[in-house]
């Protein structure tokens, strides 16, 4: 047996018309049927699924982005709110301070006014009192003088006692 593949009896490598014809028919039929009923539907289904998966991924990505955006937005709003709060607080503080200081001013003014009024009143009262004292003293002096005049006194001590008594009487009044 020499080189087996080129030997005349190596039947598998002998092209026979019958097998060629049948192979051609079977292969072409197989190709046509497989393409129509199997491979095209499968390829389409795979493409569709690829598309579905891609769009699902894209949607997830989009949703994630949206979430991120929303979060950022929330963060921003929260930040704004915080800022607002701080602002409001500081404003309130300022206002409070202002009010307080205004009130203080006012109170001071009022107090000053009251004090001034009180002073004036006191002054007035004082004046009135002085005037009254003066008047009373005058009246008293007059009455004393009148009583002194009306009564004849003996001695100096008797005068003094009498005046004292009168003065005391006035005091009682």
């Amino acid at each position, binding site marked *: 047996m020499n080189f087996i593949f080129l030997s005349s009896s190596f039947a598998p490598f002998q092209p026979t018309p019958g097998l060629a014809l049948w192979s051609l028919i079977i292969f072409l039929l197989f190709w046509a049927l497989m393409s129509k009923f199997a491979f095209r539907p499968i*390829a389409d289904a795979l493409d569709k699924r690829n598309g579905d998966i891609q769009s699902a991924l894209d949607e997830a990505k989009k949703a994630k982005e949206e979430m991120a955006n929303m979060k950022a937005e929330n963060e921003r709003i929260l930040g704004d709110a915080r800022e607002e709060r701080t602002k409001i607080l500081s404003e309130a503080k300022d206002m409070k301070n202002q009010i307080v200081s205004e009130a203080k001013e006012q109170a001071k003014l009022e107090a000053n006014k009251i004090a001034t009024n009180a002073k004036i009143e006191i002054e007035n009262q004082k004046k009135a009192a002085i005037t009254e004292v003066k008047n009373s003293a005058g009246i008293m002096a007059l009455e004393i003088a009148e009583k002194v005049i009306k009564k004849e006194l003996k001695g100096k001590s008797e005068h003094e006692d009498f005046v004292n008594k009168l003065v005391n009487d006035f005091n009682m009044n």
Partner: protein
Amino acid sequence: MKQFLIFFSLLLSITMTAQQHDHDHDHDHSGHDHSSHAHEGDHSADHETHEANHFASDCGSPAKVIHREGYDPAATAIHHISDANVLTIMDMIRIPLPAIIYNKDRGLELFSTGKFAAGHHDNGHYGYKDYVLYEGNIHRITCSDFKASDKFEVQGFDTGHATNAEGKDIEKRYAIINGKGYNIEQKTIWDGGLLGGGVTSFYDLSPTKNVVTMFIVALLIFLVFRSVAKSYSNRDGQAPSGLQSLLEPMVVFIKDEVAIPFLKHKHKKYLPLLLTIFFFILGLNLWGQVPFLGSVNVSGSLTVTMVMALIVFVITNINGNSHYWGHIFNFPGVPWFVKMILTPVEILGLFIKPLTLMLRLAGNISAGHIAILSFVGLIFIFGKAGESFAGSMIGTGLAIPLTLFMMAIELIVAFIQAYVFTILTASYIGAAIEDHDDHH
């Protein structure tokens, strides 16, 4: 894994018992042999002649059935991987197939090969009209003085060598009927006489065992993929399951690793062709490895791979664009004297591409079958064709691990060769349809 190994060795031993059964009888049966030295010695048949064109004169010369001794592993291997007109499973079950013969004298003839009552080595016990079954193939008795009848007994076959008119050594085959040798002619083989064939007096258009196997495999693949395709529409929007999840990775692999890289945006058009080629070859490769299905060597048959290569050749060239043809006939940017060499090379390449496709697949698969058959043949070599029991036990001990190893390799080869054929198809088509501005 262990269970699998036990099961596998059991399978193998059953197969080999069947084979042993076959070859035990080889020496006491019809007595054909391929090797010419078998004809040496004192055989009565005087057909061992080297004179030119002795075909006609041999007709009706006395011959008797010779009991051959010995075992020829090469001939056995070739017989087992060749196409046949009967489907033999384990040398026990012989399924007759329809025969469709186009005869140059009588026109189209249709009958069943059951008429031959094929026996050991697929040789027919009977003849029909002037047809006999030799080595599983229909042969025709060419002797003009032979009286054709609907049923005649064939005692055996023999071979001899002769030199034809061109001085080439040719094999002569005889059918021995009533003690007389009659020349038989094989069916027409389109090899231009290069591989021992040539155009003869009849064409065998029968659905042979290769055709039947091809049909069964194609049908099975179709049914499987049909159900898978249906589950894609039935289970829309769901994860794949069952067969679908088994085959989907392969489909996706061919699509993503073969179709898209080579065919770019045009991959959709050619994807069904690539998938058809891949699964057709893969199915045939795997089917050929199953021991109980006749181990039919379809994808290792040059005729089948030739048809597929031819289809690829046609598809490639009818879709080839001006850019592709321009690169073949008038390679751009190359001086004229280089073109003188380059253009013939490119034109040759046009035909070499499908030729390599055809040879690579057939060669690889046939080689795998031959390797396995050779390892199994160790049993008969060590066992002296059934004479020595101890020897055949040694042979079996050697054959089991070697065959197991070879079958494991063949399993990989089945996938690799299907993949290689597919990827080369994609690259040939891709080169033919590539857009001009794609890579410039």
